[in-house]
């Protein structure tokens, strides 16, 4: 097994693991602006966890499609969500 596969599988496991309580907390928050922050953070964790999962599959099976789905699709989407979270966090504290 390659280091790429092991580390991506490990990252996927811990991020998807922590995304579950993050999703539950986001659902419990009643204040709209904080609920948005919670949702964005939880969404980032879920999508970034998916990225690592697909990247570990890419490391195992290889191929351009899985490589594109991980590095070319889910990774930028997860960072786009993280950026939206950062902007929301910044704007509330502005």
């Amino acid at each position: 097994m390659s280091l790429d596969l092991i580390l991506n599988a490990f990252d996927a496991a811990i991020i998807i693991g922590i995304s579950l309580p993050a999703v539950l907390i986001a659902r419990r928050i009643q204040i709209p602006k904080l609920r948005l922050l919670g949702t964005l953070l939880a969404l980032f964790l879920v999508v970034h966890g998916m990225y690592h999962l697909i990247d570990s599959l890419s490391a195992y099976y290889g191929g351009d499609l899985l490589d594109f789905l991980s590095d070319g699709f889910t990774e930028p989407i997860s960072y786009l969500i993280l950026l939206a979270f950062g902007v929301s966090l910044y704007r509330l504290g502005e």
Partner: protein
Amino acid sequence: MVDLESLTSTSETFTLLLIFLIMAILTVAAARTKTLRSFQFEMFVFALVLFSAEVPRVLDTLGLIDASSYEDFGLEVHSASMVVLVAFVALRVYSFQRPGQAFLAPSGVDQKIASAVKSILEAQMGVSAARAVAFYFDPNIAVFDPKGYTKMLGKTFMGGAGPLVRLMVSELCSQFAVPHEDGMDLESCIKQVRKKGATSTDPGAG
């Protein structure tokens, strides 16, 4: 036939831009809180580790630098950034679920003020709402940047935070036995409490 390799390469350029933007916004957000004990600072630490792992990797993928010898180390640093993020989020989730269970009991006056702010929020807004506020805007921010904390409450509750802040000022002054003047803002109140705190404080005794 779509050239997936070139599509991936274009996306990597976009990813690089996003990472720079994330780093910039989280740096400014963390700097504004003026305390290391805030969620904003924790997110900044995570972004810093992520930045150091991702930038050389993406630049290498784009063929702009040769970081092939760095590849394995970069993967390890990326994993480290994930561990950092998971640890910070897990600690906040723990505090959210068990608000009374602090890892460290408040010792200095600053921690006592933060603890009092948290208790006032819980008493005024209800435990659930107060915990949601504390998850993203640590009560420590109120100690080191009371003006920013007041603004944050105003934005979170869309201008409806005036009575809450007035109550907070009144409660803090009462708990720490400092003179409360009409129209006193949170900044002046906390300044006085911190000044007085150098001598003696026991918010629980009031």
